[in-house]
């Protein structure tokens, strides 16, 4: 029972940061939705706002960390090129080259051509949206409870950030199952 350095890293990238992202999203969404003057006493608003800022900021930071580490550390392992002369139609020869392993077989090629091609790009939208939401919470603080227009917009961006990260995370898990980075 052991993990290679690369497997350990992919666990950090996908599982640890992904779990933190999910937790921050759940807390942040509930916090944003309920941050209304008619739901909360002034003391409740004051108590809840710092927690909301923490949740949205953590989600933004984790989203940036996830895309940066995924793109600049894990992705080169995924798209590593096999040595010249390797039979690109022989899956057994391509276990260390996930992109080529997926492309070697018709039944797995879609995991690269659709899933990876979408995942590697759409993931980068998540941190920009999450940062905008965290900024709105930072800027308005407790006043956000009186700005329904901004709060609703923040909820929409927050959900879209989650959707973008969700596409990336889900496909990442499937791709890793089909062609793990060893």
């Amino acid at each position: 029972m052991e993990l290679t350095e690369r497997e350990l890293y992919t666990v950090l990238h996908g599982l640890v940061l992904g779990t933190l992202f999910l937790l921050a999203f759940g807390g942040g969404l509930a916090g944003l939705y309920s941050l209304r003057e008619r739901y909360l006493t002034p003391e409740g608003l004051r108590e809840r706002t710092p927690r909301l800022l923490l949740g949205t900021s953590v989600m933004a930071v984790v989203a940036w960390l996830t895309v940066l580490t995924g793109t600049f550390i894990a992705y080169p392992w995924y798209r590593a090129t096999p040595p010249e002369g390797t039979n690109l139609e022989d899956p057994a020869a391509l276990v260390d080259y996930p992109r080529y392993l997926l492309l070697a077989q018709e039944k797995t090629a879609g995991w690269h051509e659709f899933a990876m091609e979408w995942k590697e790009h759409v993931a980068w939208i998540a941190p920009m949206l999450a940062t905008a939401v965290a900024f709105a919470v930072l800027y308005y603080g407790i006043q956000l409870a009186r700005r329904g227009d901004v709060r609703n917009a923040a909820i929409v961006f927050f959900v879209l950030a989650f959707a973008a990260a969700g596409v990336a995370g889900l496909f990442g898990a499937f791709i890793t199952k089909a062609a793990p980075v060893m």
Partner: protein
Amino acid sequence: MTAPTDTKPNGPVAAAFAAAGVGSIVLGIFVVLNEVSEDLSRFLRFDDSFGLGSGVGPLSGKVTLAVIAYVVSWAILHAALRGKEVNFRAWFIASLALVGAGFLLTFPPVFRIFAS
């Protein structure tokens, strides 16, 4: 416009939302441009040109330029809208349209339409 209650003006938040939209659409545009020609794809290989992420390929250029567009547009819009109360609904709809276009252009069946 005036703020609905005694809150801060909404300009800086509109700027942050719009910048996210700009970053998203710029990302989508470079995803498409990478498909349009081999020369553009080569240009986007910032790992080769600038040593930015060895082995990342054109993705290095696409995301770097998108993040630069995001940061620069945020700085410009923040300076322009600081202290102002704007029509937030209009700014948000415009931002949402940019984000939507970004999502669409990163979708493989869409960007492959432009493949050379």
